[in-house]
């Protein structure tokens, strides 16, 4: 991006033709992954394993959509950089927020402590 980019290499026509099938295949793949995810949640494994599996699977879906459907794969790298700046910052912020709120100091008060302490009637 530092200089005016030279004209792109000659038009990639064969690729254009085959894109149709690429798209269809990817869509099928996405559907399959979604099915997999659905199965995953019912598996009797450790929780952290399932969560990581889910995270990985949806990341894969995510990446397929942005790189193929959204053409990042064929576009200038700068588009990818641009989008990933937002994606990484958003991811980092989410991570930090969840950490902050997951911390011990952030546990909300149990409800009993919320109510103003009842007045004790004292008769001398």
């Amino acid at each position, binding site marked *: 991006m530092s200089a005016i980019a030279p004209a792109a290499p000659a038009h990639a026509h064969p690729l254009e033709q085959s894109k149709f099938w690429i798209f269809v295949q990817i869509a099928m793949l996405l559907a399959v992954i979604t099915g997999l995810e659905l199965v995953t949640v019912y598996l009797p494994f450790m929780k952290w394993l399932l969560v990581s599996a889910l995270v990985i699977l949806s990341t894969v879906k995510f990446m397929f959509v942005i790189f193929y459907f959204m053409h990042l794969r064929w576009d200038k790298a700068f588009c990818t950089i641009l989008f990933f700046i937002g994606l990484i910052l958003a991811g980092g912020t989410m991570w930090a927020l969840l950490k902050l709120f997951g911390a011990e100091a*952030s*546990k*909300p*008060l149990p409800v009993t*402590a*919320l109510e*103003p*302490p*009842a*007045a*004790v*009637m*004292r*008769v*001398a």
Partner: protein
Amino acid sequence: MRLFHTFTPLSQITRCAAVLAAVLPLSGCFWFDGPQSTFDPNGPVARHQMDVFYVTCWVALFIFVVVGSVLAYAMVKFRARGEGDLHAEPPEQGHGNPVVEMSLIGASVLALVVIAVPTLREIWYTYEVPVEEKANAYEVTATGYQWWFKFDYPAETAQTLDATAKAVGAPFSTANELVIPAGRPVHINLRTVDVIHSFWIPKLAGKVDMMPNRGNHLWVQADKPGYFWGQCAEFCGESHAVMRFRVIALGPREFNDWVNAQMAPAHRVAAAAAGAGAPKAQFAAYRTFSRNEAGFTEKFDRSPLDSWRAQQLPGKDEDPALIARGRELFSSKTCASCHTIRGDGYIGVVGPELTHVGARSTIAAGLLENNRDELHRWIHAPNEVKPGNTMWVKGYLANNIKLTLEDEDALVNYLESLK
């Protein structure tokens, strides 16, 4: 056009100008030891925080002096002199010097390390009572209300009778004046019932917020007996500025006495005495006050701890009949729907507990000195003292409380008798 129609007269400006002219020569008198000055720490927490402050301050000053000297030198040395110089050939078009830049970055990082080390240490120190002191720590709970503070003493169980004349034990509570033992760490739980407040006793510790739905806490320790100013430090609405409180640190004996006095139910003036003394039938002539007027005398201010002690002594010249009338008015005028007075059967929870209000040195959340004039000023027109406050809006306005001067006198006498 709300902005314009409520401005008070321009005479205010003249008044300002006059006062300003008077204040000028006094400059510098109070700089470092005002009642809320953080330069005068009276306990370990505040002291540690001040230490960090001094580290940062010296580092910052050092950087400022060094960088500033270079900058000043450059400004003087390289300044173009005279018109001739302006049109001279431009200087050498240098573009940078990586070595200089890298070493300056290194130096900055070093300076930051100097700050970071004490910062980290004190973050942990100020967060929680040190382990070896934990057993010795005293616990209280402070709850923020718009715009006053309530203090509960879970450690102290007052033996009292409940409605069915059964003996029960329950912690007592007080308001706006936090009495703590000196020389002992005090662990303060911070709660709020409405918006965010922040609990700040500058001479004892930095602030910690009272967050809704969050169990915050703070610890303080007063080196020796003393009287400290506190202040809400997070904007919480109209009367945030006058949401104050006081902290009284007492030696062990005195603290114990105070606790015992607090546990007792409301003081009653013996009716028997009534016949002997000459009851003052007419009500006192109370002062009038202007808006925002300061709420204490200089005498009080000079030795607040002594004033507080004086306040603990039983009242003189009390008029039992008047007091009894005050007690009766307190419920007939619906004061009791908001205030608790243990022993007199009043159990409101919206406002501060008043069981021993007469023994506090201030009222209205640390704003006014506790004497008859100021107390009268408060119950006469709470909104003049604290704009928008709950007692006015949800009490006087909502319950349509109308008090005659006689009523007010009775109430003042009643409340002052509650030692």
